[in-house]
């Protein structure tokens, strides 16, 4: 994944239009990307759904596009950091976590990020002081009100049941 760069989102009107056409085509649910990508909760929700579809690269790209629009969306940074950690990608993890540290030096999550860094890169002096023990975060899952595993599973079971009754005809 390319490293985030604030200068990516173009100012030129034509380039801006092309970028938005690209986003709308690549992420079908974003007809007005400029606004949609600044809605952190929605971006989280869509990125999570991409993960559900085993499209973690596309999820990372969506988060990246959203951050290119507004770099202050802290939870999107954390989502990306978790993705890099889960994907066992030390290079991207370091780039993202250092970038995050520079932008949000007082963030409480830095403690967890350092522990994750220690686990991913045990010999790296950057994380030498970090705790070994930590609770694996779940920054890639939006708040539970919007997403309930039990409810979702109940619908799935009901669908499978209905499908089975037709398939056995």
């Amino acid at each position: 994944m390319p490293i985030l760069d604030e200068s990516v989102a173009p100012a030129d009107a034509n380039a801006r239009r092309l970028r938005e056409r690209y986003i709308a085509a690549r992420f079908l649910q974003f007809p007005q990307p400029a606004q949609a990508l600044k809605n952190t909760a929605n971006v989280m929700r869509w990125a999570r759904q991409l993960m559900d579809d085993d499209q973690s690269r596309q999820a990372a790209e969506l988060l990246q596009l959203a951050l290119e629009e507004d770099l202050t969306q802290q939870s999107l940074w954390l989502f990306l950091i978790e993705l890099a950690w889960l994907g066992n990608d030390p290079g991207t993890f370091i780039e993202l976590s250092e970038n995050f540290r520079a932008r949000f030096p007082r963030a409480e999550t830095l403690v967890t990020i350092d522990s994750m860094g220690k686990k991913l890169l045990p010999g790296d002096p950057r994380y030498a002081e970090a705790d070994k023990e930590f609770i694996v975060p779940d920054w890639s899952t939006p708040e539970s009100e919007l997403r309930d595993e039990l409810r979702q599973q109940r619908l799935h079971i009901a669908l499978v049941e209905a499908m089975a009754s037709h398939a056995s005809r």
Partner: protein
Amino acid sequence: MSSHPPGTNQPGLQLTRYHSGMADKHSALEQSLNKANVAESEQAVSKALREFEEFSRNDRERFLLGGLAQTGSDQAVCEWIAARYDHLGRISRAIVPYEIAPGTADKDKVGMARTWALAVMLTGHASKWRKIAGLRGDTAVRGRLHKLFVTAMMAGVDATILDVMVDRRSIETTVEALYVRALLLERFASGNLPPKRLEILDSWLMTWMGALWLSREPVIDGPSLAINTRNPTVGLTRFVPGDRADFFLGLRPLRRQLERAAADFHRGIIFPGWGIGLSFRMEEHVSLIDFLEREFALIESSGAQKSKRFSIGNVSDVSVIFGFNDIYARALQNQSTMGSSSVSERGAVNAPGDALSGAAARRASLSETGGFVQPRVGRQPINLLDISESGLGLEMDTEEASFVEVEELVAVRIEAGKPYVLGVVVRKTSAHQRSVTTVGVKVLSKVPLRATLEMLNDRLVRQSVKGIFVAGKAEHGFADSIIVTDAIYKTNPTLSVMVASGVFHLRLGRVRQQGPGWKMAAVEVRVAH
């Protein structure tokens, strides 16, 4: 044959006397070449190629932009383009020396290297245009490419840096990179890659030349593709330890190139910024990114293989229905979310609340249909050609196929009495027999479920909504989807539905797939009881 020169504003494409003149010119060139003078011959063929590309640029562009609405005359021009590239390819291969005498000066070696590069490039061009024209693949092409590459390597010119011209653009490359480009085109074009995307892919590969290099040892830090140059029937295949292979192409450099292409789109630049593909819709570029991501993922996943396609020996008639509304009303009449016991949904209440009045249902139907989804009677017979886990091929009359759009929903019943399979049309090709069109279908669900949902809002008469459930494979249920019309999706509704014996309130999430008038959205369950 018309007398219009190409590039004039005549409707459609036509073979003219200028086209036949170009073919004659190539035949004359073939006769007149002094093959003993390699450098001079190479320059003459390169010049002929540049002239041909200038001459045919308009035809190529118009054919590709014309999409699926093509006439027989358009097709004839496309086949002519493929034949010209093929002919120039044959001429170029005839001037390749295939070996270089020891002691040949470096300057002369570079001149000779150009003949290999030209031959490999033209073999790739010809192969691409055969596919664009829907012609049967040339089975000898891989063997030819292997021979050209191996002999270039033995002559020590495979890695010589050269410039080649592609559509007025000078590209720095090597014989090796051109060889990899041709094999990648062969590999990726064998799937569902329509002509426009194949053209875009080629301009990407031409821009990625620096990343198209082979190693002699298997790549250790990631998945790779492999080549066995001794096997003329096989090109680039996913490497599995133990396979016979003598060259390897790592996937990581290709992934990085793909990410850079995406980064250009983030900046508002159409990658690579040149070529016929520049004028294509953004959706074509994005579909290619999606396609390559899928292909790379397939190569990366160790066990996964493309599902095997079984051809149907005796052509088999199947029942086929196109379009959301017709599928909902006719194909899925007996495939409801209530299970097979509820044969008819008439009068059934699928959700809590009042039963829908006939008027409300009719209003709902009208508001959902919009201007997009036209009811259409499935015309018979349509034949099933082949079938796999993920797709099937249908054969139908070309005139009737002209009413079918790519990305249209299709329901196919393969066996009487069995459930309809739901799919989406991914390609249409009219090959060998012009009166017949092959329609490629990607399967969305083997047992789609018809659902009558109810829109939860403040109105007294609740609006009924037509939906088709497509259950995902994952047990967590977050991969489940529902297909609704565009009009319904846009209202961002909360919907109520009864599935089996449960009642659920749903929201529509990310659009996973869409077509004319319909969207397949992720399902988010808000209430389950």
